[in-house]
């Protein structure tokens, strides 16, 4: 199962859990699964059915442009990071 890494400032929501294994083949499914386990999670990450603009999602170390639709493999790691500006 993919592993979602929980940002430290969101770990209050997950009872201190850093990493949570959840079912899912897309980022959307991972987020929905986290919402079931820890209600309120989705609202922190998603707005208007999109990843919030101030947040970026990385799958296996790479920030994905396709957001909630990005594919997640069975061994994947999903990270939630602050969105970035480049030079």
């Amino acid at each position: 199962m993919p592993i979602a890494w929980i940002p430290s400032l969101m770990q209050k929501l997950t009872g201190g859990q850093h990493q949570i294994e959840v079912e899912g083949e897309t980022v959307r499914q991972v987020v929905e699964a986290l919402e079931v386990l820890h209600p309120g999670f989705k609202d922190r990450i998603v707005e208007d059915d999109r990843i919030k603009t101030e947040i970026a999602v990385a799958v296996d170390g790479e920030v994905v442009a396709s957001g909630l639709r990005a594919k997640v493999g069975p061994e994947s790691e999903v990270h939630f990071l602050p969105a970035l500006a480049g030079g």
Partner: protein
Amino acid sequence: MSSGNGYKVIGTRPIRHDGVDKVTGRAVYGGDTRLPGLLYGQVLRSPHAHAHIKSIDTAKAVALPGVKAVLTGADLPEAGDTIVDLGEGPARLKYMSDNVLATDKVLYSGHPVAAVCATSVHIAEEALDLIEVEYEVLESVLNVREAMQEGAPQLHADMTTQEFGEDTGKTSNLATHFQHKLGDPDQAFASADVVIEREFQTATVHQGYIEPHNATAMWNSDGQITIWTSTQGSFTARAQTGAVLDVPVSKIKVVPQEIGGGFGGKIPIYLEPIAALLSKASGQPVKLIMTRPAVFESTGPTPGSYVKIKMGANKDGKIVAADAYIAFESGAYPGGLVGAAAMCVFSCYDIADGLIDCYDVVLNKPRSFAYRAPGSTQVAFATEHVVDLLAAELGIDPLEFRLKNSATTGTRRIDGVVYPKMGCKEVMEAIRDSDHYKSAAPSGSNQGRGISVGYWFNVGLQSACTASVNSDGTVSLTEGSTDIGGSRTSIAMQFAETLGLTAEDVKPQVVDTDSIGHTDVTGGSRVTYATGWAAYKAALDVQEQLCARAAQLWEIEADQVKFEDGTFSSGDKSYTFKELAGHLDETGGPVIGRATVNPDSGVGGSFAANIADVEVDPETGKVQVLRFTVIQDAGRAIHPSYVEGQMQGGSAQGIGWALNEEYYYSDNGHLDNSSYLDYRIPTCLDLPMIETIIVEVPNPGHPYGVRGVGEANIAPPPAAMANAIGNAVGVRPQELPMKPGRIVAALATGG
């Protein structure tokens, strides 16, 4: 000509396609735009760092003969409370709009408050003097730690701190707080044999591009707006301008003119909406060129910072724990640069346990924006200093210590991300193997050598290319990435390589937003990577279509045609690319290849390193660079000369940042050094030749292995310089710039 890497074009050094225009003065930059009936605009800027605007009276300016229109913030559409991401990070539209023209408040000295257009630039300037603005001056705050304190003058009454998607509801100058935590840092520090903690400060510095911002606009009576400008991203400029003007992007065409440097600073818009509205009001095209003081006072510098680094290591030389506290000055409005700093702060090392705690803080300086590997330089300065101290404390050679702790493919960073294939260790090994490092360190009195490493993760984003095959066998390649440093050629070379053409056979062209698919900014070291990839895919598209044309001519199936070494063949029949291009009219007409990319994976980060030899004049505190080497992983150097150029340019900027560059504010928040005279970027006479070593650890995520090289090179120089100064005179500065007076003072007090 062959590069010896198995490629015919990649790795060679052809003359850039836009070169002749640029050495003859014929290339048209934004400021060179000339149109019939052109009017000239000027912007009135706040003399105060923090004030309420009580009233603006433009009547006298309007009455001045020659003045055609006058504009204030009230003329901009009401900006709703929405968050927009227009290619330069997320921002509140209200903030973006207010930064173009202030409405209720000015938040920094130089904040635009009104604009004028007239038949001459001088009349426009005279008109500015006739605009009467009444301000209620407020107390200002200019330092990140002061701005974070309770009771500090507050810039935005309604701004509440965001903590990773959660609104804390607490109003202050603290815009954002977030953390990354890996493992158990407290326990890891407890187990360390040596722990070193230091505090660092860096000044606000500017990108310093030589070409001032400019924009020329024509707002036609049918509502179509054309904007000629120097921008790092024509589509981003279009989107931002559309948002501020509340006009659909389809109504705006941005024509990217040649751009005289950007380094991140020409991603945001400043003058474009003003030029458009002045044109709308006057019915004529309007050109604005920022004055040099305005460029410094009002456009995106990179954040000043306060950084605290704690690192612990074992006796055997392994770094076991690391903590960072990073507070960035985002300027007048919240920014996103501290997030990047968090990803870079310990990026060069394999550390199992750590905490990175980050703060984005508003204060009365211009809104900060990206500057070459934004955020990375500030934190590399801090980390690389502490790494040197740890090595010294443990009695280990600083390079050996870095090699022992190097991050590598598969290393998990403290922000949780696991590295794909990357070249950190290879870059460190290149230090060890370099002529410079192998030569004896300078041994004169007050001379010393320092090393450092740094990182930038690079980005992917969207690019588009189209390629029309000409009947003479050449190809016209159109793309949307504005070319700041030779990227037309590095893109064309990838296209040429794919089709077995020469670089000269491809004619690359940067076109306007109506003529190519959406292409994101020239930034994030992404152009040679992503637009190059689009060119590669467009070449494959051309190849496929040409195979079909050859098949038609030979009356066989397309899959019976193969393409190799620039030749289409089937059995004993063959056409060179050029030969086949001559038969397009008889096989269905023109061939146009096209491709778009928006990579979700495969962006390869780049590491860079420096070796710096310096001499310090202990009486004056002045530091001379005796010898300087820059090493960087390019993945694959498409055009080595321009890769070297990026590395040398980033080095020079980093040396300037290290030694002299800073925003110098008076106590009332006025920028005192808003000129090239007193904002001291390095001159020719301040630098030695800059030696370059290109490391190539190909990026498996790109067809040619490219990693962007534009940015990582600015991260290590200040740290390398500080370490060299420390080794020269025994005092290792913790504050940038390491200017002469500061060095003398440090030597006098022994630290």
